[in-house]
């Protein structure tokens, strides 16, 4: 690679310098250049200002009792926390949270591992299947919730309909009607939408495994199962550590699908801590106690993260084994008395199926697994598309059936061209869809642009100067902000935004999302820059580039895949975000598509199912396109390990 070709400046440009300039240069050798500080400054300032203040404010809230009517704050110390100890609702919610999280983490890990192992094999159509598998994760939790609540819906839901069509109507149940069953089904839905993320990250780990390890183990006599446990699992251990931490945080903080699917019910059967915190804060307006509940959630994720580190963390070296310096390889064993060779029994002859039979069985099993994966990932999404093309009246037929009476684009017409939809009176909610789509696109585009520009610079500085104290501390600070649940921040955000007149503006949403996603993009870019040799920077500087020019002409082209990956992750996260959009907007002006979809549910008009599914299909369109066209970049992004959401 010729660095100097990429740069317009002639080589000699940096040679002629005044002695003063040279002296100045000398003084900087070995220290962190000013450029690095300038590169991280915007990211740090934005995150500090936009997340730091609400964080402090919500901590402050959790130490007070508030009266929303008189607007008085009474300092109560840790009373809010102490009162939770004896609170039966809290204890029950804690138990449900533990169950929900355990179910989700176990489910996503096992399923994600299976998916990753399948998708790591070479077979025809692997690329398409990889994309297909990603769709449930890429689509918004709100759309996931809408889809699965209709599948499970009592009398007219798709699952009941399918059973009816298969003549198994007797098996139909009020799926979400029973408390414990509802909790399990919501957790299963969570697994459905989160397992692809685990699979993605494990796939990245599998791809970094040298192929020779498995070949060596094969020759050493290990069969497929022994190889999985002796080679693959230990290799994935560092990934599994990260994955289980992320999966745990994600399931502890799960909120969107609960909001859509059960709203904590029936009764309190699905009231987990995040929902209880939401209720306490926003229904009962006990902000102090709500914040305290949510901070318990944060504390729980910290404790669990530490526990995972203890269990899965890097193995400590055995005492006495470490301090031996690498010996010089002179110790050629010569006239030493050797231990005698053990007498080995002749190699075992395993009873085996004839190879063609064994191969056939393996192929068949593999094909079945692939087919199951296709059905698991694609069938529900196809059902959503089918429902959006079904006449609205079909969707509430009883007895339910999944066979539509006909296909129509009416639903899409209703939401996309509200005025022209003839005799139908378009509902208020449906009229909001076009603007919501535009809002989502504008917000997503602005957020990803800001995040990749600032995140690239910050990631560069973190990668090159991560050793220096300032950068190490601020990097961990950034990551910690990603461990706090959005629910704790949303109330202070609301209050502060009201003060600044940012409620109901796209600008407000963009600022909020940037502050969450900048740490993510900075982290991803840092990982990417760490793979770029420092000599490239040096070559550019020696060739006379300024540092900005070095970034632009030399490094940016090299890290472009990483930039694309970061942009995709930021766009998806902002497109799919629900909670902040819900709280920080109240009129259609700035409402994004997840909010409008959720509005269909609040509006509770049965015949609106059609337009709601049409809106949902439109909302998953960009994530699906991303999954299909940028799947390669998503795997790359997962390699950088720190993906959340």
């Amino acid at each position, binding site marked *: 690679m010729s660095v100097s070709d990429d740069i317009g400046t002639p080589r000699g440009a940096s040679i002629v310098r005044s002695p003063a300039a040279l002296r100045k240069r000398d003084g900087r050798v070995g220290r962190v250049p000013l450029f690095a500080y300038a590169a991280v400054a915007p990211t740090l300032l934005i995150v500090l200002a936009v997340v730091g203040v609400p964080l402090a404010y919500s901590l402050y809230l959790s130490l007070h009792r508030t009266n929303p009517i008189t607007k008085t704050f009474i300092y109560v110390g840790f009373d809010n926390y102490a009162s939770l100890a004896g609170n039966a609702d809290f204890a029950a919610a804690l138990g449900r949270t533990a169950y929900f999280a355990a179910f989700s983490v176990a489910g996503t890990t096992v399923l994600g591992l299976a998916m990753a192992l399948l998708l790591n094999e070479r077979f025809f159509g692997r690329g398409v299947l990889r994309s297909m598998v990603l769709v449930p994760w890429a689509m918004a939790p709100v759309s996931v919730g809408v889809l699965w609540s209709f599948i499970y819906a009592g009398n007219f839901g798709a699952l009941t309909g399918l059973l009816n069509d298969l003549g198994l109507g007797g098996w139909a149940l009020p799926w979400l009607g029973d408390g414990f069953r509802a909790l399990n089904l919501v957790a299963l839905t969570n697994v459905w939408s989160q397992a692809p993320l685990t699979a993605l990250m494990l796939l990245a780990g599998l791809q970094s495994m*040298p192929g*020779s*390890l498995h*070949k*060596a*183990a*094969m*020759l*050493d*006599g*290990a*069969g497929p199962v*022994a190889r999985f446990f*002796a*080679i693959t699992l*230990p*290799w994935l*251990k560092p990934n599994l550590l990260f994955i289980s931490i992320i999966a745990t945080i994600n399931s502890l903080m799960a909120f969107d699908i609960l909001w859509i699917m059960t709203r904590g019910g029936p009764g309190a059967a699905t009231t987990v801590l995040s929902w209880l915190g939401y209720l306490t804060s926003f229904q009962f307006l006990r902000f102090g106690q709500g914040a305290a509940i949510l901070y318990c959630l944060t504390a729980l994720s910290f404790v669990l993260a530490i526990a995972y580190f203890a269990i899965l963390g890097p*193995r400590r*070296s*055995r005492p*006495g*084994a*470490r301090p*031996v310096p*690498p*010996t010089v*390889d002179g*110790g*050629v*064993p010569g006239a*030493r008395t*050797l*231990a*005698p*060779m*053990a007498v*080995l*029994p002749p*190699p*075992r*002859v*395993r009873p*085996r199926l004839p*190879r063609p039979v064994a191969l056939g069985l393996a192929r068949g099993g593999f094909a079945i697994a692939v087919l199951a994966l296709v059905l698991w990932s694609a069938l529900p999404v196809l059902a959503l598309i089918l429902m959006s093309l079904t006449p609205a009246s079909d969707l509430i037929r009883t007895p339910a059936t999944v066979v539509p009476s006909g296909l129509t684009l009416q639903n899409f017409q209703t939401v996309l061209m509200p005025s022209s939809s003839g005799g139908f009176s378009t509902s208020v909610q449906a009229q909001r869809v076009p603007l919501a789509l535009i809002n989502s696109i504008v917000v997503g585009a602005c957020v990803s642009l800001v995040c990749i520009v600032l995140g690239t610079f910050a990631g560069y500085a973190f990668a090159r100067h991560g050793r220096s104290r300032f950068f190490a501390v601020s990097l961990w600070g950034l990551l910690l902000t990603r461990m706090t649940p959005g629910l704790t921040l949303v109330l202070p955000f609301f209050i502060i935004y009201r003060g600044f007149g940012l409620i109901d503006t796209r600008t407000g949403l963009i600022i909020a999302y940037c502050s969450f996603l900048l740490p993510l993009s900075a982290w991803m870019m840092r990982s990417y820059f760490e793979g770029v040799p420092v000599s490239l920077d040096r070559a550019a500087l020696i060739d006379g580039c300024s540092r900005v020019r070095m970034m632009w002409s030399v490094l940016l082209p090299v890290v472009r895949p990483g930039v694309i990956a970061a942009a995709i992750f930021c766009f998806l996260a902002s497109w799919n975000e629900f909670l902040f959009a819900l709280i920080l907007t109240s009129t259609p002006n700035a409402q994004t598509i997840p909010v409008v979809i959720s509005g269909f549910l609040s509006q509770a008009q049965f015949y609106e199912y059609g337009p709601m599914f049409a809106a949902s299909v439109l909302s998953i369109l960009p994530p699906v396109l991303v999954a299909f066209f940028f799947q390669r970049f998503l795997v790359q992004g997962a390699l950088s390990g720190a993906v959340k959401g």
Partner: protein
Amino acid sequence: MTSITIETVSKSYGAMPVLKGLDIDIRDGEFVSFLGPSGCGKSTLLFCIAGIEAISAGRILFDGQDVSRLAPRDRNIALVFQDYALYPHMAVRDNLAFPLRQQKLGPDVVRRQVDWAAGLLGLEALLDRMPAELSGGQRQRVAVGRAIVRNPAALLMDEPLSNLDASLRVRTRTEIKRLQRELRTTVAFVTHDQEEAMVLSDRVAVMNAGVLQQFAEPMTIYRQPANLFVAGFIGSPQMNFLPGDGAPGGHGAGRLIGVRPFDLVPAGGGPGDGFALTGELALIEPAGPVHYLDVDVGGRMVKATCVDPSGLQPGAALTLTAPRHTLHLFDASSGLRLAS
């Protein structure tokens, strides 16, 4: 401890043929090297012998038994990989014990055998280290240890020395040779490095583009290369090739004369009986024990050697001679060696 017979073995990846009808017969206890340029299919051949890759045509026999359809673990073969493929999460001891544990041997036997291999390779002090804590040479020894610990029928090595520095490489190859003598194992050894192949092997198989070029004792390959490829590939600096019609001595058109630089010396400095060339000395390159002379013979650069360059002047005319029996004669169109 087993002989390996490769019968018209072919292998292709998709539509691309990598091995084309190889016939190689490795005797029991023999040390054979596969030598060839990068990408010629050496690793692929080893993988086929080990059973990691299935062959597309032909047969592989161990001691006369067809093993082509056996799974790798049923062939009782060990392979040392170019990157060693040590299990990164296992200490050296566990790496060595892994193949034994897979055979469900008792802990007692495993410990004794690990101690034996560690003693043989001087690994006793390293048994509790992780692979990441070892130097390149130490890793190489662990990899060899893991390969021999279960007493395999044959030992395959894929460029096991290419990651070592020059001096360590020379030392290690002596050790490998010693080990092979002691264990009397059949060894198939892949290398890029012709010197390594010549020093180590009982016989060398030279390959190019998936085709076997010559399979013979090292000095036979050096002295009687079977074709132009082998003649050019073996020996450094490369053999000089001169058209038969232009050269003195009248070997005739359609033939090429090959002469190694070490056989070509300034006239008067050696036994100048038969073959002689005259040209203009272009360059003298000192190379330790000898000096290389670049001589321009009618627009063609010819490399020769001399021990004492004093009295030679670049730019001056120089006559080179070579003993007649050192000349190699090739058919220009087929590339095959002609009996001279």
